[in-house]
């Protein structure tokens, strides 16, 4: 694969990779850096026979982002990274004002999901991947993907119905 083909077919997925890395890391600079590293890896493997280059790139992105999180967790042992980059569940007064925005409430709902549920819903509803592709990216079986997506959507539905009946 030459550079032009790589730029046209592989680099096109840069925003998907960036969004996924951002979802996992929560920091745009870290996400950009990780995705750059991923593309360098993919470029070095450009002659390998890989069926779905984009899904493979997403899988590398996930692993690289998780490695970075583990490294950061080791470096700052006291920091809780389970909610890195995600809005706090204990809102500040300023945040409370922002909470009036429904969009922020949706983000809060997403924070309440498990990591797998969050990743599955991101890959399906934001990036539009098939279940097989999600399974490949997250290294989960097809059933695990379906179960996680079902549980994630059920939780979201439940929360949205609460908003609808009680308001924010």
């Amino acid at each position, binding site marked *: 694969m030459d*550079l032009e083909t790589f*730029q046209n077919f592989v*680099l096109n997925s*840069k*925003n998907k*990779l*960036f*969004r996924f890395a*951002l979802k996992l890391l929560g920091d745009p600079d870290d*996400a*950009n850096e990780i*995705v*750059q590293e991923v*593309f*360098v890896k993919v*470029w070095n493997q450009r002659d390998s026979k890989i069926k779905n280059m984009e899904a493979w790139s997403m899988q590398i992105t996930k692993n690289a982002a998780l490695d970075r999180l583990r490294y950061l967790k080791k470096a700052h042992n006291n920091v809780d990274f389970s909610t890195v980059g995600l809005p706090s569940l204990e809102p500040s007064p300023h945040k409370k004002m922002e909470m009036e925005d*429904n*969009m922020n*409430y*949706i*983000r809060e709902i*997403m924070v309440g999901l498990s990591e797998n549920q969050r990743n599955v819903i*991101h890959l*399906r*509803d*934001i*990036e*539009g991947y*098939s279940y097989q592709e999600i399974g490949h990216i997250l290294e989960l079986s097809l059933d695990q993907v*379906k179960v996680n*997506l*079902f549980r994630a*959507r*059920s939780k*979201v*539905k439940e929360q*949205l*119905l609460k*908003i*609808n009946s009680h308001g924010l």
Partner: protein
Amino acid sequence: MDSEIIKQLLEKYWNCQTTVDEERQLCQYFTSDNVAPELSHVAELFRYFNEEKSKKSDVNFAMKVTKRFQKPEVARTTSLTTIKSVFRIAAGIFVLVVATILIRNEIQKTYPKEIIDTYVDPKLAFEETKKALFLIAESFGKAKNEASKIIMFEKAEETVKDNIVKKN
């Protein structure tokens, strides 16, 4: 689109029975301005998906990544410099070897050949050995004569000592 169809699609969506295309239709509907009031609470979810989808990587991302691809060329130039320095070292060693050979030749010229060289002709070698042995024998002969003089002195000394004893 008819809100009844949307409601059916939405039900399928919550049960994870929608295709990617149907989910795209839902997204289009909920991000439009024609959302039915009874479905407005769900619209925020799809707006959230849409907003997340709009997040993009660094503007100069492609350029930065392409620059990193050019790193192997840097590696190639470094290997070229390594080859150059190897050649320099080899040239240094060559000069040293040549200088050593030249100096050795000069030393050989300044010393007489017979001291340095050995005799290839056996007859000549025999004659030269004979000469050397005669020289040694002659020296031994001279030494013997000198030694007999010392013995004569010792005898004379003893005779003088005996005479002194007899007189006393």
